[in-house]
């Protein structure tokens, strides 16, 4: 078995090193209310065939009518990736027989897609920041589903999903490892959600990837590729590509050749296997759909869509660096989703706190609490102004950072805002010089042995005394003052 590394683009087999070449095709279901060519709803999970209209089940005589909302989302995507939104694009028929494809053809775009070119920026673990070039993105319709439960030896066909709008996003073969493939897929996943064109729900199949994988010896022309389907999680994508790379390298090293084919990833066995059903479907007989004249998109429409676009994550990340002085890591984390970013900005706008403090708290306490509760930031019980209110109490010395964590937990539990909790629980910081001095005197008197250790040169003993003083104040004493007074009293 050939050795492979998932973090190095040069997968090692025996002899000269192997290079992996990957291109991804992603099917993003567009978040429209109705289907791409019919007025049937697109909601997930309805009873079989209850959301399949006459057009969706291809009754004779009915015709497709394009959904403007699907096109608008394609334009958004084109603008977001810096691609060319085609002034004129063409719908074509892709012909093949399959029971989940009611017309016997899929309406797609072939020669002239709606979005041409563009790219997605990612950070490769080995190559640093790179731009993954997109070949195209085109509009098409989703197919129905075959249910393989046994109906007297037959399969059941549910056409609810048939006609759901898809944007198929195709990269150039720019990716060199499963890590890069996953980084790209995650960036794309974030982007389509960011611009509001796809809900990104991978369990429900809203965002599905196919990977075209080939291997070659460094410097050689492209090898024969296999297309792996059914990559419905980032983890499976990584495992499937790694398996496929190992399989292809082993095959070639044993003197075999890779056959171009479609393979299915089986997560239970962690392997890919050939899909026999696709074997004879290679001649799709594409031709322009005579039912649909060309799709024209005016410059004016593009301008209107552009005006309604949110700030894109890359631009926002750069701005978070310059405007808020955040380190790049923080800026990247806070722009991982639109909700996270707007939470941050709302908290900063509420005033009274340093942006960096807000960032620290969001990436620390808030993030941990969200993970524990398994909820999205939009559902966080502590809203941005409330968080800002809490952080302001640290800044103005009302409470310590340590106490603030307890206050945050109380806020999360719904006990009220920061001020109310501080007042109710009497958590306000003790900053009165006299009071602290009295407290410190008590500690020194009660801990003569530790004082002696300190005087004998054991520096750590000082921290122990600070701890005792803080404990005596139930954490409320201003730690800086405690420090200063202790130092003075111990003859510093």
């Amino acid at each position, binding site marked *: 078995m050939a050795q492979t590394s998932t973090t190095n683009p040069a997968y090692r087999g025996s002899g000269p090193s192997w290079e992996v070449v990957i291109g991804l095709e992603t099917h993003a279901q567009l978040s429209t209310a109705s289907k791409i060519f019919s007025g049937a709803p697109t909601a997930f999970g309805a009873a079989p065939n209850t959301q399949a209209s*006459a057009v969706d*089940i*291809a*009754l*004779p*005589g*009915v*015709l*497709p*009518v*394009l959904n403007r909302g699907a096109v608008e989302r394609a334009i958004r995507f084109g603008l977001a990736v810096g691609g060319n939104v085609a002034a004129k694009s063409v719908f074509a*028929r892709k*012909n093949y*027989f399959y*029971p989940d494809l*009611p*017309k*016997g*053809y899929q309406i797609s775009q072939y020669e002239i897609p709606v979005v041409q070119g563009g790219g997605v920026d990612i950070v490769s673990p080995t190559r640093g920041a790179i731009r993954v070039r997109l070949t195209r993105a085109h509009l098409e319709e989703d197919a129905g589903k075959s249910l393989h439960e046994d109906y007297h030896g037959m399969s059941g*066909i549910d056409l609810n999903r048939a006609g759901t709008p898809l944007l198929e996003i195709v990269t150039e073969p720019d990716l060199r490892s499963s890590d890069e493939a996953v980084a790209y897929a995650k960036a794309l996943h974030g982007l389509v959600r960011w611009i509001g064109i796809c809900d990104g729900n991978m369990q429900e199949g809203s965002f599905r990837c196919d990977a075209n994988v080939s291997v070659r010896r460094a410097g050689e022309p492209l090898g024969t590729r296999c297309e792996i389907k059914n990559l419905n999680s980032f983890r499976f994508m990584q495992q499937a590509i790694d398996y496929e790379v190992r399989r292809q390298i082993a095959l070639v090293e044993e003197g075999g050749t890779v056959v171009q084919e479609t393979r299915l990833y089986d997560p239970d066995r962690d392997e890919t296997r050939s899909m026999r059903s696709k074997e004879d479907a*290679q*001649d799709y*007989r*594409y*031709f322009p759909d*005579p*039912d*649909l*004249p060309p799709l024209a998109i005016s410059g004016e429409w593009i301008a209107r869509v552009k005006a309604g676009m949110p700030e894109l994550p890359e631009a926002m990340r750069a701005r978070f660096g310059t405007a808020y002085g955040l380190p790049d890591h923080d800026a990247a984390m806070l722009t991982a989703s639109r909700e996270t970013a707007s939470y941050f900005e709302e908290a900063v706008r509420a005033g009274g706190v340093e942006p960096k403090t807000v960032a620290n708290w969001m990436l620390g306490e808030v993030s941990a609490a969200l993970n524990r509760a398994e909820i999205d930031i939009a559902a966080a019980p502590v809203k941005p102004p409330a968080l800002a209110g809490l952080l302001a109490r640290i800044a103005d010395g009302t409470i310590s950072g340590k106490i603030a964590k307890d206050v945050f937990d109380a806020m999360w539990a719904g006990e009220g805002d920061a001020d109310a909790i501080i007042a109710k629980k009497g958590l306000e910081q003790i900053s009165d010089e006299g009071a602290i001095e009295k407290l410190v005197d008590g500690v020194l008197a009660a801990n003569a042995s530790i004082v002696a250790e300190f005087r004998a040169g054991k520096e750590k003993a000082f921290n122990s005394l600070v701890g005792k003083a803080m404990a005596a104040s139930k954490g409320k004493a201003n730690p800086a003052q405690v420090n200063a007074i202790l130092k003075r009293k111990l003859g510093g």
Partner: protein
Amino acid sequence: MHSHDTLAGLAARLAARELSAVELAQDTLSRIATLGPALNAFVTLDAEGALAQARAADDAIARGTAGPLAGVPIAHKDVLMTAGLRTTCGSRMLGNFVAPYDAHVVEGLRRAGTVLVGKTNMDEFAMGSSNETSHFGPVKNPWNPAYVPGGSSGGSAAAVAARLVPGATGTDTGGSIRQPASLSGICGLKPTYGVASRYGLVAFASSLDTPGPFARTAEDCALMLNAMAGHDPRDSTSLDRPVEDYARALRAGASARPLEGLRIGLPREYFGAGNDPEVAAAIDAALAEFAKLGARTVEVALPAVKLSVPVYYVIAPAEASSNLSRFDGVRYGHRAARYDDLTDMYCRTRAEGFGAEVKRRILVGTYVLSHGYYDAYYLKAQKVRRLIANDFARAWRECDVIMGPTAPAPAFRLGDKTDDPVQMYLNDIFTIAANLTGAPAISIPCGLTKGGLPIGLQVQGDYFAEGLILNVAHRFQQATDWHDRAPALGSEP
């Protein structure tokens, strides 16, 4: 007893309550019962439905809420969906298919108040020029039952020619309205592509399919088109244009030379040696008549038109091969009784459900779109289609209408061409171009052969010139009586 009235005449008498819709429906149904079976013009009759619609029409007329064609009995080609009444497309594949919706043109005629008596026989999936490919058997030409009525809308043409109904619908993909109109001695209009919606028309070749009317006169065609035309948002190729009254020009008073100044283009390609001499003579006589009406002729050149047939037999089968893929035995229609697996189920279902001509065209279409042949056939045909359209665009600078024979020969005998598809296809040599360009054309009767078979004149116009070609045909019919000639039927009541 009312069978010799035109559609316009019947509509007027119904509106004036000189005649009740129920009485007319009963009369129509009994005439169909007597004469219909021998012609095999109908696939499905709906006597009960017709009487119910007639009663409703009488009520509407009495209340003053009736549409312009209230109570007029009509028939629809069995390729147009009729809610609740089966639509077979002349195929075993759809032998029992009942749609829950009306085609747009069916809806329009229903709204105008027409009474639907039944669905007419046709070549299977509208593929044919003789009406011999129907699963329900061939239709006979009312002028001579040994002859074909033309196709693919042969049942509608025969039903109107035999005066079973005053009007019927058809669809025209390569001449399927005009050629049977010509062979059966009636009028048939193919409007501009996009003027009448294709919604509810079972697609044969989507970029060519055009619904249109059959009737005895141009005026009747205009009245039917008024009810059939109009924008339909359910068809992306339906055109959103201002509503037009196609009968308006026809209502202008007659003068001695009503077509003064009309320029008739005569393409030399339409007048070659291949035309039957009797057809050529009848067209010449018609042109002489037009000269008397004030028109003059100009010669025009349509050099690419001779390529219409090969272009058509690439594009139409290509589109058909894809359009007919939905007939797979999964959601409706025929499914083979025995099969080994999924692929076998598809293959047997389609082998059993489709007839020979349909299968042949699916194979041609599959081939011309397949890998390695697309450019040489499909793309090439689309380019030559453009050349044909360019020829017409040039011709329209020199003339207002183009005339010639609708078909090179009168009706042929049943069975004469069934073994030679290419000879059959050549029947449409003059009609196909209008489908390729999308412009309108009408066929009107202009003579009879010595053997008593009708001859048709085709009048073509530029895009949206329906009003013009209907008026040109109407003025001819005011001056001649070919449209009044009726076949002598054996058991004429």
